[in-house]
């Protein structure tokens, strides 16, 4: 079987599940977005063909670094532009980019600022300045309406969404226990779960208590982590190295599940749909691993 050169050198950078939870959209380094049907892939009579995308289109010039799903639309971010695609149309295998009418969208950009855009009108409402280098990751605390952002400059800044003013700034690399100078100071993943915050990247992946603004546990994972999520009482993270790490809040690494790509860029959990509750990971390979039981890899979807 001849694998084409393109597939050989493909990396998956982002994933997002549809609002109904039955479809997965993945974006790769060639600027393409592929939509996979989870229900077909997970059904008992699934075949090779059901592991291929039902729709594959070129969304951007450069790599698609992030995908986000709202209730009706899929937003994709490429080199300097954000496109919105309607999920309903994508499921019908047609792609039309159209405007959205929802709340606001928070965008972290390469110009070191965070922009908040009103999705209904498409106008930028406000700008949050403060970072000295470009921004890698954003997350949102719903309860307190706070925005957390992590960037290349190594700082995690917490902003108040209502007043758009910075609240806190944590420079993770300054903390001895987390810092890993051999890798650098950049923060590439952030996750928050009410009082807790996970951050990692150059410094080790660490769990912080937000009230006290101090790290409670540091996870001894060898590579740089690129994405981490809270799930029930576990922390799952992916990064350099061909495995998904399951960690406990206490700081121990419970398990490392092997995967196909040699390093992973993105992890997504499909919690919206209880039938297709899966975890999918993608990275430096054209294949996306699907975990039905989070302890082992079930099968792979491929571009």
């Amino acid at each position, binding site marked *: 079987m001849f694998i084409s*050169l393109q597939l050989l050198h493909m*990396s998956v950078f982002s994933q997002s599940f549809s609002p109904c939870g039955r479809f997965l959209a993945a974006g790769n380094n060639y600027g393409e977005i592929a939509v996979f049907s989870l229900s077909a892939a997970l059904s008992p009579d699934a075949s090779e063909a059901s592991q291929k995308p039902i729709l594959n289109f070129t969304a951007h010039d450069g790599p698609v670094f992030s995908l986000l799903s709202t209730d009706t639309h899929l937003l994709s971010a490429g080199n300097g532009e954000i496109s919105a695609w309607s999920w309903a149309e994508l499921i019908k295998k047609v792609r039309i980019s159209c405007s959205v009418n929802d709340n606001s969208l928070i965008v972290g950009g390469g110009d070191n600022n965070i922009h908040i855009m009103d999705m209904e009108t498409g106008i930028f409402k406000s700008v949050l300045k403060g970072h000295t280098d470009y921004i890698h990751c954003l997350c949102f605390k719903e309860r307190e309406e706070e925005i957390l952002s992590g960037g290349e400059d190594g700082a995690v800044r917490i902003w108040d969404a209502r007043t758009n003013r910075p609240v806190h700034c944590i420079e993770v690399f300054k903390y001895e226990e987390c810092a890993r100078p051999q890798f650098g100071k950049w923060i590439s993943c952030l996750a928050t779960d009410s009082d807790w915050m996970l951050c990692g990247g150059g410094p080790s992946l660490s769990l912080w208590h937000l009230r006290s603004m101090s790290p409670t546990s540091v996870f001894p994972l060898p590579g740089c982590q690129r994405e981490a999520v809270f799930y029930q009482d576990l922390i799952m993270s992916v990064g350099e190295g061909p495995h998904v790490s399951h960690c406990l809040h206490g700081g121990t690494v419970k398990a490392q599940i092997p995967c196909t790509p040699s390093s992973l860029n993105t992890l997504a959990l499909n919690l919206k749909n209880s039938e297709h509750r899966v975890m999918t990971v993608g990275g430096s390979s054209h294949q996306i691993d699907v975990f039905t039981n989070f302890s082992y890899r079930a099968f792979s979807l491929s571009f």
Partner: protein
Amino acid sequence: MFHFYHVSKTGSERVNDADICFIQCSVHFITLKKLNRLAHMRLKKGRDQTHEAKQRVDVLHLQLQNLLYEVMHLQKEISKCLEFKSQHEEIELVSEEEFFQEAPAEISRPHVTRDDNHQLTLARLDWELEQRKRLAEQYKMSLARKEKIQKAIEQKREYLSSLQPGLQNIMQASLPVQEYLSMPFEQMQKQAEVARHLPPPLYVLLVQAAAYGQACDKTLSVNISGDVDEAKALSRRPEDSQEDESDSDAEEEQQNTKRRRATVGVQLEDKRKAMLRRHPLSLCVDLKCKDGSVLHLFFYYLMNLNILTVKTKVSTATDLSGAVSAGELLNSESLLNCLYASDHGKETPNPANRYQFDKVGITTFADYVSDLGHPYVWVQKLGGLQFSSDGAQVCLRGSALSASHMEKTMKLLRGRLQARLALHKQFSSLEHSIIPVSSECQHLFPAKVVSGLTRWTMMSYQEFTHVLKAGLVCETDLFFMAVVERGTARLLAAVVLNPRYPEVMPLFSLSLHWKGERSGRTEDNLRAMESEVNVFRAELQGPRPGLQLLTNQIQRLCVCLDVYLETESQVCDGSEGPREFPREKMCLRTARGPSRLKPFKYNHPQGFFSHR
């Protein structure tokens, strides 16, 4: 009498009475005699009368018989006459209307014949005779004319044949003129003569190649070589010779078994040789390139297998030497491998051969390929032989098939030769650690490239299998190892060169030895370097026909190594010394994306590096 007796008895008494009785007796006797005589005479008369009547009756009877006989005879004659089929009925006579129309009056005599059938038939017969006589005369005249004309033809023929020696002389004398004007008529005629004995596929190939050469490609030339007499012998008695062969084979076999037991192996060997026999004539096609090198292709026809095979030879204007790694490039065994995708030329394309091989115990044709030549599929197509079982294709046969493939194949052949020669030159320079980048491609790379190629060697297939996934390489590819170094860092690149270079890009697989070992399998940045070198064909192939591809790829590899080493963040296990590789390249941003890829793309003419 009784009385007399009585008397006589009693007679003695009366003698007189005796005399009276005696006279009475004598009178009685005379009367008796007279009566007897009378009776006899009466009898005789009666008999005579009867006799006469009988005779009369006999005569009449005879007459009757005669008449009856005559009647019968006449009846027979009559019936014979009635049955008599006159020959005249077998003659097809013209119909009566035509007869009356055409025949002259004295023959047809209509006033008589209209009434009388007999006369009519006679008249018709006469007319028939008349006509036949006329036609016979005409025939004689035509014969005479024919004789005359024959004679005239003979005369003219003699005249012409007397011209023959004269013409030969003129032809000989005109040879120098032909050469001077470069119109080799004589040569072409001779070739045409020999070409008549070629087997059909070779003939098709000859015609098509010569036509293509004349029309499109002046540098292509076709010659026939081989033993013409053998070919003539083959073609003269194809059926007889086959029968003879089989008979003589049978005889020989019998003799063999009688004399000595020839080993089964030897017999089988002979059968194999007979099956794999080549036709004595072969074609030689020469493709000349601009730089003086020539690709010689020798086409052979295997008669019993009905396939064509080809052998190659390259002759170059300058002596090619020095490049150790280039040994395989111009190897005649593998030069034409995979001219079209997956056309390896190891197995016979004719499915019928399988059965023939089974009979003589040949398991793989590949063993004989080096002897007999490679049976590539494109060779069969050029000879008009179609074996493909692909029914969807348009079924062309013979010349049409050959013509449709000729141009493309010749272009591919020429391209292949040029690519290999270019590679040869490039390899000899690569072995001296110089990457030959032509001036048209200079814009792809920055002015200063510090990393340099230090080694370029060939590798074997076994060493390579662990490096790349099996789906990407196969045995017919060529494998090389390139080592690029800068300072303490060594980059090992395993290169897979497909025989169809430069249509198919060479594949690079990298591993870096610098402060540990990293490879394209494990590290994202090395993987990005691989993709930078492997994927962007349109940029790297340079001016047509794209022969700069490999050298450009290697140069790009050096540039990428430079970028990689210079943008590597200050590592040091704590130590803050001077960097081994100071930052010299201009980069917008040294790391992008979750995998923190380095900027490998070079932008010309601004001269900075950015991400793709």
